[in-house]
């Protein structure tokens, strides 16, 4: 490992080293490589931790039944392991969260990047980044104890939302994702070259036209990356849905007024209880975990590709 070919940009260093190699330098490189391998080991560890019990699970429940079954009742007497109810709850919460977070986050980003003066931006941008660091258990708490009672009070009538429901979990999650989407979109909008804006103004465009027809399209890959990252966070977020979203998902429902367990909420509920190790119920946690890992893996791949595209264009 220590005698690899000179890398780009460090040719000068290697050429010098060849003459006067020191033991420190080669020892250091071994240490650095070892550190870098920790992240590979993490991924391998995750895959092993998920796959081993999941194989045990899929020996007793067919993959087709797992992926297409519409009944999820591991804790009932009549056991069924179809994951779609958990997926449906995850989709409902994610969609509600995006309906809130995308317009508000994008609007905030457009205002900060195109309209706000430099001082406002200098003050508000760090605050947005600060708010992105609020722990998710806090959002779970306010969803259950502040937002839900408020929702019950202002509900216009008819069937009221349940004590724990997907609507309130989705709203809280939307509020949580706004700073992330706003911050990343703003980054990509402010990296759009000034010449593009000036070109549009020279053609007598108004500010709104420049914002919506020049800046947003030019920054679109960064914006898409921000939204995909938002989806990925919503799908993988655990505390809000565990606290405010509901605990049982036995059948597929898209009703946001009902409580239902998402994939993450199911994992959290079952693994914090006392289910015997090695039982089918216990292994079902890992099967759901594996599915969750695959979904977020796909979302991350899209987001990484988008970010790379927007870097290539303007940096």
């Amino acid at each position, binding site marked *: 490992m220590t005698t690899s070919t000179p890398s780009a940009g460090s040719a000068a260093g290697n050429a010098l080293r060849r003459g006067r190699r020191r033991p420190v330098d080669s020892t250091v490189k071994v240490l650095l490589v070892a550190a870098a391998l920790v992240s590979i080991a993490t991924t391998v*560890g995750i895959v092993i931790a998920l796959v081993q019990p999941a194989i045990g699970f899929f020996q007793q429940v067919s993959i087709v039944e797992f992926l297409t079954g519409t009944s999820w009742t591991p804790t009932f007497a009549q056991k069924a392991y179809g994951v779609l109810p958990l997926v449906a709850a995850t989709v409902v919460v994610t969609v509600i969260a995006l309906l809130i977070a995308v317009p508000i986050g994008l609007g905030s980003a457009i205002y900060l990047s195109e309209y706000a003066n430099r001082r406002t931006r200098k003050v508000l941008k760090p605050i947005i980044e600060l708010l992105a660091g609020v722990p998710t258990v806090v959002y779970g708490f306010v969803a259950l104890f502040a937002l839900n009672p408020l929702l019950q009070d202002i509900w216009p009538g008819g069937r009221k939302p349940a004590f724990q429901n997907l609507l309130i979990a989705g709203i809280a999650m939307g509020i949580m994702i706004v700073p992330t989407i706003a911050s990343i979109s703003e980054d990509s909008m402010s990296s759009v070259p000034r010449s593009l804006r000036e070109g549009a103004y020279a053609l007598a465009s108004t500010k*709104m036209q420049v914002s919506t027809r020049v800046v947003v399209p030019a920054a679109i890959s960064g914006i898409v990356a921000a939204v995909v990252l938002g989806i990925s966070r919503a799908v993988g977020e655990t505390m809000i849905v565990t606290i405010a979203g509901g605990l049982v998902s036995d059948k597929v429902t898209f009703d946001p007024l009902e409580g239902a367990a998402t994939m993450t909420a199911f994992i959290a509920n079952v693994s914090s209880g006392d289910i015997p190790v090695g039982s089918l119920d216990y292994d079902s946690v890992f099967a759901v975990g594996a599915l969750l890992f695959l979904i977020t893996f796909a979302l991350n791949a899209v987001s990484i590709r988008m970010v790379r595209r927007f870097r290539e264009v303007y940096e």
Partner: protein
Amino acid sequence: MSAPTITTTRPEHSAPGSALTQRRSRPGELAFRLAMQACLLIAFGVLTALLAWVLVKGWNRLDSRLWTEMPTGLVSRLDTAGVQSALVGTLWIISLVAVICLPIGIFSAIYLEEYADSNRWYNRLLELNIQNLAGVPSIIFGILGLGIIARTLGLGFTVITAAIVLSLLVLPVVIIATREAIRAVPQSIRQASYALGATKWQTVSRQVLPSAVPGIATGSILALSRAIGEAAPLIVLGAVTFITFNPDGLDSRYTALPIQIYTFITRSQAEYAELAAGAIVLLLAIVLAMNSIAIFVRNRFEKRW
């Protein structure tokens, strides 16, 4: 008010636009601007209102009981209950995360930026792997801890298991921030060092790293503050119980602030919600203070080359 003078005297990219729109503003323009401004106000307004609500809700519990008393599962003892064991647990875990995660993260970043040939497939794989790990849900890291660290390695539901899992969780944050800080150090600094006969490691350790310290510090603090607020992986790692003693070693059972808050929330009695709010204010004070320091360090000390 001619355009050339504006563009030369004011670097602000929106300046020429505002001059033009002033002359030919339309109702649609104003509505759009107000709508965008409203988005920003809603975002800030809602978040501020919620945080203020938590402060009011927990106000009665914001006294020394919070850190001098232990949590309790008995409603009758709630008057003399606090979160001392959770606070001490969080301090234990976060010190260990700093010891485990920061060296590994910073070393990985040095390897990727200074030593790795980015044309090699294994180095590209390494990079993609880190970017992907940054987006893996935290509860999946809990499953990693449960399956591999707690059971296969036999470390059990202990302080050290929690610290290792949270270290792996925030490792990508440290690596990505450190890489950006190292990348921002200009090539000419390295070349000057080599020209004076320094070896590669001398150049990295005496020139590149000192210049990159503000960026590395910012990333490290943000990573630690994220680890402090994480609850999901610890749920899987058996932390959801009332622990009424402080951890006394790496193999001790533990609880941590976010997990203690979750435990309070799952209780149905209203008194627990109040105590949870008090604990949240404590948690937020720690996390937001750390994030403010990180952002301040970045804005104040980061060198522009």
